[in-house]
């Protein structure tokens, strides 16, 4: 192994780093290879899938993607997920940052208790309250519709969002809000026009993690949605796996899985820095 930066030439260091690079590359291959295999399989016929699992196909079946989107219903599930995720995120960020703003900026009795109640929600596993939640939603007519699903997503995401946003609003100078009030803005206008735009980095962090949380969410959707037309992507793709066992149109299922992973990949590549920072920020400060 190389002895730090002072000794040895660079050639020696490269040589010393070689075993480490091999290990790193091997694990990178373990991570990436199943996805490359998936991509290549998504362009094969079912016959090729069974006969030549290794080689890329000579005649790519783009039809698999059309079949996945149209016949297997991935297109509908995709749009359902876009609808549910964007509406949920809008309400989570709005309602969550309003609450966080009040908790960060105003001093009132009961403030600490409310703050603690929000933060401690992160300790409760989803499944603890799942039966009471299911019964409650049933009584309110909120099963099997997006009103119920989105309401639950918002309620379940508030802990985390209030946690992130309160921390963020606390770093903003209160003088700005005071100045806005003196200029005759209402409290809400101060929040909406002055403070919220300043909190944009916080909104981005909270937004990214809520995006992944909701776009990928499975158990809550599983208990709330049973109507097949309302399925979100995770529900749809899980269902397809079970159904396709009998239909053996594997190409379309592989293609469907590729379609599912594309938005995740794009958001991931685009927000790489915020994701890595956000994942650990809470942990390191705590």
């Amino acid at each position, binding site marked *: 192994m190389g002895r730090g930066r002072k000794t040895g030439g660079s050639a020696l260091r490269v040589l010393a780093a070689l075993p480490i690079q091999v290990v790193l590359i091997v694990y990178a291959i373990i991570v990436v290879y199943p996805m490359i295999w998936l991509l290549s399989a998504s362009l094969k016929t079912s016959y090729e899938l069974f006969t030549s699992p290794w080689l890329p196909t000579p005649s790519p079946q783009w039809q698999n993607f059309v079949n996945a989107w149209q016949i297997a219903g991935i297109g509908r599930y995709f749009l359902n997920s876009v609808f549910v995720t964007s509406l949920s995120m809008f309400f989570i960020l709005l309602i969550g940052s309003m609450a966080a703003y009040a908790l960060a900026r105003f*001093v009132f009795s009961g403030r600490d208790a409310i703050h603690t109640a929000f933060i401690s929600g992160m300790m409760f596993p989803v499944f603890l309250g799942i039966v009471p939640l299911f019964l409650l939603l049933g009584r309110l007519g909120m099963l099997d519709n997006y009103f119920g699903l989105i309401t639950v997503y918002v309620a379940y995401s508030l802990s985390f969002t209030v946690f992130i946003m309160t921390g963020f609003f606390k770093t903003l100078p209160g003088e700005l809000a005071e100045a806005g009030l003196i200029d005759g803005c209402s409290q809400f206008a101060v929040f909406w026009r002055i403070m919220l735009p300043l909190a944009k980095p916080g909104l981005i962090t909270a937004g990214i993690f809520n995006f992944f949380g909701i776009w990928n969410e499975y158990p809550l959707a599983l208990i709330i949605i049973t109507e097949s037309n309302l399925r979100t992507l995770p529900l749809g793709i899980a269902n397809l796996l079970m159904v396709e066992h009998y239909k053996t149109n594997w190409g379309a299922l592989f293609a469907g899985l590729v379609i599912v992973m594309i938005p995740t990949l794009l958001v991931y590549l685009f927000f790489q820095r915020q994701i890595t920072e956000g994942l650990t920020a809470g942990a390191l400060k705590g």
Partner: protein
Amino acid sequence: MRRLHKDISPILVFLSPAIILYAAFFIFPMMQAFYIALFRWRGLSENKDFVGLQNFRGLLFDDPIFWMALKHNLAFLVVSLIVVIPLALFFAFVLSRRVAGANSYRAVYLFPNMISVVAVAVLWSFVYNVNFGLLNAFLNGMGLEELAVGWLGEPNTALPAIIATSIWYSLGFYVVLFLAGIQSIPPSFYEAASIDGASHFQLFRHITIPLLWEILKLGVVYLIIHTLNIFGLVWVMTEGGPSNHTDTMLTYLYRLAFTESNFGYATALGVVVFILIFGIALISLRLMKREVVEY
């Protein structure tokens, strides 16, 4: 500037939507669970009988499936502790030492953790498929045909196959967590030790580990929470089968509640899972107690 506000109406406007939603759809069901767990309650009827702690007694003393499921959760936990924590520590340490391509490796390793567990489960169901799966194709290519089996259909291989998938899914998260912890250690510590002739292993052993200890504890707590809460991966890959050989506490809970409508009993299981997570986390924090190194 932070004075006590006399006029609380704007505060109410800002806070009430969040409080109402959170109280009604989060806090209330969570609290109600502790109450419903005390009833025998089947189906959507209003007939529920108060049975006290009988559901808990049934689970702990009279339910082999619960114990099987718990054992499977503990298998996830123990294997992850043995594999994920050391491997993540190793990768994090290496990536923190100015290795070529460090940022790309970190990005690649973290990616599986960003995909939906359902997509991960479906992808790996394909990898393990008996006919066209990547794993069997690999084994056949190596001339190990006799090892190629239907991984998720065999009682002996199904659980290890899912545990391997969960490691593939989660490892990157711990690499990023530990890497951030290591990067917050002042570089001067390493430089001073290097000048004194410390080897990489000595740096790791005497600087990284003690200064990372709090983050390491956090990683272990996350691991406990994740492995005792495992559901989606198992549900999509096997639904707990073949014949309960991959059941976890939550796949069992899901079946109890939503296919058998055994609400009281299922909720009691939810309470048990909650208590187990808390208990095991507290015990492991106690075991990992060390004097905090301030720097």
